[in-house]
């Protein structure tokens, strides 16, 4: 499939945004949705809707099968060993909260250390922060180097005999650094430390293989993967899901409920309390099929080429300073423009239909380290083209002109 053909699958690009063609460079924030995903939500609600896993009527059984089909699709997509290692959550944020809460409850005590990195999104810091108060744990941050990277050596340096879990990003949403997560996991496991990977930016762009990666937990955000909002996935090794306590209580996750006490359900129900985001789960199956149709390797190749091209274009622009020059870089281009605040850049670009993000991108620790309160960020998806990056540069020149 050519990029032109792929782009046609996304209905948003048929619309004018303030009389302009949309140049969407905010996929690290959330990706656009292909027609198949939108249609699947509509079809489910209009022809097939029922709650799942409860009633035994025709629609309920069919909906349950569709829901479980997505679990199997995800399992295959990330090469997990068992389909019950896939837990649906309301987002990657909830997936990380689930681990911080249950793992923290069972395995963390005062004085224990949690190792994060300075690259982390707030959603892979704030959930752990609560354990400081409730458990008296200490949080350490492996340092980001001048290239916006966190190396294996830095992780190793920060591990002590008190380190109880390592929680790190797969791909930084600001510097674009792709961390050596497999090597970090290997190192951590040699010291009996489990590893959680925040895969919000990794999953949409990189081929995943949980059995090869061997991490204990991997959090995925579905809306960044051409899927619906309100849905995330926690991959966790079965031994953890069996051993850790339930997260939320409610319907669907119990086995037997009596006045004297409660027993909990089997996997995966144990971690899916209440009515889940059924339509989103079923539609996300279409997102996986859509990615599979193109091939994640092809998506990665296309985005890597564009990232290099984008860097070239922006480097030629003397007023632009790129943020982050990591060894292995994903599809994120963060930058500053001399004399123009990122918010002013975003507003001016928006007039040309160029959608970027400006601010701290939920990474205040990282921005403090950079000595900047805000940066501008262009991030890529499968539908982006070289023309989009040319337009970005042209609109940046317009910013310069206004502020000259």
């Amino acid at each position, binding site marked *: 499939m050519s990029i032109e053909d792929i782009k046609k699958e996304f209905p948003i690009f048929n619309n004018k945004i303030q009389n302009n063609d949309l140049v969407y460079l905010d996929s690290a924030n959330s990706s656009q949705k292909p027609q198949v995903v939108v249609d699947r939500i509509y079809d489910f609600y209009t022809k097939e809707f029922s709650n799942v896993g409860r009633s035994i009527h025709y629609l309920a059984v069919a909906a349950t099968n569709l829901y479980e089909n997505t679990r199997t699709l995800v399992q295959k997509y990330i090469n997990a060993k068992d389909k019950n290692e896939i837990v649906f959550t309301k987002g990657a944020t909830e997936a990380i909260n689930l681990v911080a809460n249950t793992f923290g409850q069972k395995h963390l005590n005062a004085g224990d250390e949690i190792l994060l990195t300075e690259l982390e999104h707030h959603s892979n810091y704030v959930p752990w922060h609560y354990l400081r108060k409730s458990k008296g744990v200490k949080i350490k941050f492996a340092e980001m180097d001048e290239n916006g990277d966190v190396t294996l050596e830095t992780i190793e340096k920060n591990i002590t005999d008190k380190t109880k879990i390592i929680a790190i990003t797969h791909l930084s949403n600001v510097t674009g650094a792709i961390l050596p997560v497999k090597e970090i996991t290997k190192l951590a496991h040699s010291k009996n430390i489990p590893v959680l990977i925040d895969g919000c930016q990794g999953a949409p762009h990189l081929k995943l293989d949980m059995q090869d990666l061997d991490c204990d937990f991997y959090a995925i955000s579905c809306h960044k993967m051409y899927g619906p909002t309100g849905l995330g996935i926690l991959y966790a090794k079965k031994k953890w899901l069996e051993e850790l306590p339930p997260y939320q209580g409610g319907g669907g996750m119990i086995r037997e409920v009596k006045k004297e006490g409660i027993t909990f359900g089997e996997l995966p129900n144990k971690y899916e309390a209440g009515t889940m985001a059924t339509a989103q789960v079923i539609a996300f199956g279409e997102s996986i099929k859509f990615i599979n149709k193109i091939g994640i390797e092809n998506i990665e190749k296309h985005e890597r080429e564009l990232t290099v091209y984008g860097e070239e274009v922006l480097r030629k622009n003397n007023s632009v300073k790129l943020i982050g020059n990591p060894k292995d870089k994903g599809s994120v281009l963060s930058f500053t423009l001399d004399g*123009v605040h990122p*918010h*002013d850049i975003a*507003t001016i670009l928006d007039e040309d239909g160029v959608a970027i993000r*400006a601010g701290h991108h939920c990474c205040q620790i990282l921005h403090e380290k950079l000595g900047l*309160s*805000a940066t501008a960020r262009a991030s890529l998806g499968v539908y982006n083209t070289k023309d989009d990056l040319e337009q970005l540069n042209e609109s940046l020149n317009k910013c310069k002109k*206004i*502020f000259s």
Partner: protein
Amino acid sequence: MDLKELYQEIILEHGKNPRNLGKFENFNKDAEGYNPLCGDKVHVYLKLNENKEIEDISFEGHGCAISMASASIMTELMKDKKNPEVKEILNDFLSMIKQNPELKSQLIKEDEKTKLMSLSGVKQYPMRVKCATIAWHALAAAMSYKKDENDSEKFI
């Protein structure tokens, strides 16, 4: 929407060369305005005498052209103003940014009105309204004004 309306000459000029920038000694009131959305900060410092008159005013901070220009224009305007006047102008400005087509207060001179109205372009950009008001909210806090329960943009 028109970018020229948002980024008027006055704003660009004040954004580039903000007046009353930097903390001064012997201030006796101060407060910080913060926009959690973008991380922008404006810290307002006042020297308030016993008559509740602003003898001196300055600000420190970092942010976009709109927030810096707004802080700069506000500090210029508020110097030597007394308490009830400060409140009246502040509320008038916030109402204008929110809904009113123009400034109503008789306390604001014509040339000052022109400067303040240069910020009215943000009305077209709801995400940027906070940029234009951050310094003003910090000033309200430094003056210990209370928010009107029925109107979150009005101080009493």
